[in-house]
């Protein structure tokens, strides 16, 4: 996958596992979104033949968790969990600290 413009609400899936994500916010410009060391697939893209997860990646992406880059300009929501670490331009994303519980409903 060439670098892609990321937009809030955009959806991507892993090429090598069950992981699916939704973009909550994203930095301007074009970027490479990865999972398990392999570019993620947008829209109707299908996984290239023979593509495999990076053998060194033992990470897991958890449903319901938010993932961010270092300056939190990118935020993804995992909508389906699975194997593989999420990355932006080759740098692994971190789990975002869960939001505080509301004080009232």
């Amino acid at each position, binding site marked *: 996958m060439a670098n892609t413009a990321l*937009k809030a609400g955009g959806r991507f899936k892993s090429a090598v596992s069950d992981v699916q994500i939704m973009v909550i*916010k994203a930095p301007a410009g074009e970027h490479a979104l990865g999972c398990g060391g392999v570019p993620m697939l947008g829209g109707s893209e299908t996984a290239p033949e023979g593509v495999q997860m990076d053998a060194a990646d033992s990470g897991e992406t958890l449903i*319901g968790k938010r993932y961010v880059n270092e300056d939190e300009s990118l935020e993804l929501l995992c909508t389906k969990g699975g194997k593989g670490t999420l990355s932006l331009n080759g740098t692994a994303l971190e789990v975002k600290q*869960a*939001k505080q*519980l*509301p004080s*009232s*409903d």
Partner: protein
Amino acid sequence: MSAADQEPDRAGIGAVYARRLLEAVGYPSITVELAAEHPALSAARCGLMALTGPADGAPLPCPAPLAACADGALAALAALAPMGALDGLRGANLLTERAAIAGHVRAGSVSPGGSCHLLQTADGAIALSLTRDDDWELLPAWLRDGSDIGAGNWGALAANVRGRTMQALVEDGRELGLAVCPMAPPSSRPVPWVQRVAGRGYSGAAALPRRAPRVVDLSSLWAGPLCSHLLQRCGADVVKVESLSRPDGARRGPPAFFDLLNAGKRSVALDFSTAQGRRQLQALLARADIVIEASRPRALRQLGIDAEAMVQAHPALSWISINGYGRAEPMAQWIAYGDDAGVAAGLSRMMFEVFGQRVIVGDAIADPLTGLHAALAAWAGFRQGGAGLLSIALTDVVRHCIAADLVAGTSLRERTQVWRQRVDEAQSLLRAGEVAVAVPQARVAEGAAAMLGADTDAVLRDWGVAC
């Protein structure tokens, strides 16, 4: 038969409802004591009616017997509780205590607390609750148009969704974890309010242990804490367990309300991000007779807690899972708060049919109703020696209350007319200065709630858990 013809029976609906609840938890023939009162008068007396209707107009009666059902649920619990444990409480009054303390008033299509709004879409209305400023950051992903709606700008949000279709908004919102639902009509079929998910359920067997039950309450805000507050009134030893990094948000709300629900409970705070904290949590749960929680199943599984496995391993446990829409997929992933759950169950649609106005009924109405029902479910399970994993959905509880008095073929408008007359008549019999449509009142807390984690060491020691 017109609605008016059925009126003579209406005053007994709270007691009928209480017996129905008791039957569902294994007590088909137990005596219930509850004074007869017309459901419209119950709603007026407790302040529920005052919390419903336009901000700049008169209060509106809701043609569902919510206050009567609250009285019935408390009467059902009292029938099983130690003699006198719940004296001085009225179920209906529990529906409006938060509004009394926080100063919430009716605001038409906005919830009294302000976080839930009814919004018009291209093909129907939806309810959306945004309870935190952070929630507004999800809107660009929800609406996918990059337009920047500042936090709290409900006007811009309402304008944005007006041209969109309800189904896409609800589906996408739920995927994002927003509390959003259609303004749906009430269910035409009966809905159970409590469902056995795993374990033995309600056998009806008398197996009352000689000691007070140990309750671990992992919940926050209102429904779960009210449930364990009522259990405490019944004599339970309640331990409120919170995450050190994410305590109950109600601690930041009005102290008088937090104290009212949580005074007298011991407070344990654990670091769920460490293996030791998760082990301690496991150990507390394994030693409990009753667990109250309101988390999504996956959130607990990510902490290593499997409710199904826990009740299989500990058959004497009654595990109350409070949720929005049940534990089946995909509904187990959907979020609900007290106001939007009432809308999802049909209350606002009923009001729209009668008054032609979009109106939220009560203040987070599903929360206190669910807390009352959950306390009955928990106490009944304890008395029977453990009932396993029980799911109680906010939306099901409200649907169940609506269905308690939904007669096929009768006109809601006609019924509401009769109910309103009953309130007017009651008013005409009162002396000057007395009002049938009362404003919400709250009890005063019996002391201050424990500080976060004040009892962690003591509870771990008492319950034999390694520190």
